């Protein structure tokens, strides 16, 4: 179908946000202590991109969805056990670092190569999705670089909605300053959309979708191409966890009037 989309979602894995993160210096620069042992999740903003992508593919007949993910293979396998139950997808796996200290440039190059190599992918119909930032490096540039490497000049970041039009174009809402959205109309794919939260909730686990996905995910993981990311002139002087602990004064068994009065005084203080 001429107005169909080929949606490729780039998403890595990040440590579960409830975990304590402690930086250590390894042979290849900074890393997280016990990084391989930390439970991981799909990068949250990229996960929103995945759900929005799946929803778009469901709406527009003839569309298809791929998930391209670079992470240590074992970690990716662990995360896919959950992600596979959310939406129908085809996985393209890259066995490489998912660390927040890995450089965005080389990561982008590896992802672009993997996307170009997707069999049957029609680049002029491509909508490249991902999170507008990761929860690891938060660079917000990887997706832009992948798009630029693929020659895509229409890019949107902080996206909260995409609305396909009858003529093949689509309207995009992007977050901008002052809690506003910028509204743009793009003539059609190819385009890059770095998603914020969108408007969809996390889909419930669907074991049937999970079983169907796992038939292709396990072979994809076995085929995962190793991606080497070097430091390439990037040197860390120090990496630390800042002091977060405050001396909390706990006020209890005090009437609401007194608390209110103290708060008003505090709010009014310069």
């Amino acid at each position: 179908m001429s107005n169909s989309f080929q949606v490729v979602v780039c998403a890595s894995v990040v440590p579960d946000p409830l975990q304590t993160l402690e930086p250590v210096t390894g042979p290849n620069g900074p890393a997280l202590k016990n990084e391989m042992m930390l439970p991981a999740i799909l990068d949250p903003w990229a996960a929103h991109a995945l759900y929005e992508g799946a929803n778009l593919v469901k709406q527009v007949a003839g569309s298809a969805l791929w998930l391209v993910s670079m992470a240590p293979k074992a970690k990716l396998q662990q995360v896919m056990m959950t992600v596979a139950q959310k939406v129908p997808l085809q996985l393209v796996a890259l066995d490489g670092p998912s660390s927040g200290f890995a450089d965005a440039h080389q990561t982008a190059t590896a992802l672009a190569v993997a996307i170009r190599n997707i069999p049957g992918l029609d680049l002029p119909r491509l909508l490249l999705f991902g999170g507008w930032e990761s929860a690891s490096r938060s660079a917000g540039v990887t997706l832009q670089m992948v798009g630029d490497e693929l020659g895509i000049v229409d890019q949107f970041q902080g996206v909260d909605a995409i609305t396909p039009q009858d003529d093949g174009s689509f309207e995009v809402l992007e977050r901008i300053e002052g809690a506003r959205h910028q509204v743009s109309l793009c003539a059609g794919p190819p385009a890059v959309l770095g998603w914020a939260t969108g408007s969809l909730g996390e889909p419930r686990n669907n074991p049937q979708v999970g079983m169907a996905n796992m038939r292709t995910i396990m072979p994809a993981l076995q085929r995962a191409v190793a991606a080497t990311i070097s430091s390439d002139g990037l040197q860390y002087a120090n990496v630390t966890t800042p002091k977060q602990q405050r001396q909390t004064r706990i006020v209890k068994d005090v009437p609401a009037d007194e608390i209110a009065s103290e708060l008003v005084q505090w709010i009014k203080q310069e």
Partner: protein
Amino acid sequence: MENILFLAHTEADGTLSKAALETLGAAVELKQALNAALVAALYGEKIQPAAHSISACGAQRFLAVCGEDFAQARHATDAAACEALVRASGATIVFVAASSRNSRVVGAVAHRVHGCVDTHVTDVAAASGAPAVTRWFYRQRIEGSLTRTQRPWILLLDPGSCSPWQDAPGLSTPELIDAPLPDSLRRTTVRGTVTPPVDQQTIRPDADLLFVAGAGWTKKQKDGQTHVPEAETIILDFLRNSKASLGGSKSLVDLSGENQSTLRFMSHLNQVGQTGATPRHPKGLSTCCHGEEPHTVGWRFIGERRAINLDPSCGWARGKADVLYIADAFDVISKVNALLSAR
């Protein structure tokens, strides 16, 4: 010798934003520390007011890409303008403010000029004669400083990280740089912006106080009933009286997506934390929110922190707030409203 470029887009009226002036301040500081050269480059529909306003910044050259095509914050044309300016300047270090417009293009620009880029930069220092930048990793949970040998190196500075540059305006006529725009760069049309209604405009980046509402506002209260309309009134009254900016926890903003009863003015744009914003305010007051790590990472740049919660063992009690009031937020904030409106 480093060649520093200050690169900024102008606002609709041709002036520079506060964030851009902060970035210029950082660029000028580094220029002085490294005894480097400075070039100022502007892009937008109108650039002359901005050029005059920074004529005394010490730049050796002023460059600009301007015209109607650059009025819109559109990736294709903005990236072309920035690429042309970076190339024309011969810069080795590029300072850019982290506005949504710049953030949309810096990655692609770095890729085109075979350079590198670091975003969310909060400090730039001249360590041993070379620039070193400080930025956060893992959503403000780890801080690191780094250097790079690759050039050009584009630095996107977070707003609020530096003092704005200021001096008297003068006269400056920038050298106009050509940024070719084939039709393929005009496939996207910016139609405008959508702004929440005035009574729902609850995000105020310049406010002294951040007021965060958690999911507790929508839960059953002492009488076994929910009081969502009352919660809405109390919170809106508080925002009106205190001029605070409103933030929300993920659990609260997610309720609207699950079609549960929730605060009508609360959207994902208000969300603070791991998948939300990391706003900068001198003070923050959290209410009915547990203060777990995924939320409190968004409080990194909040100065004084206070919280109201019924649970004495909530996250705020574990060193995340300066003061924790174990109390009913409905009661306390209603009384705060009465006191504030009486003044």
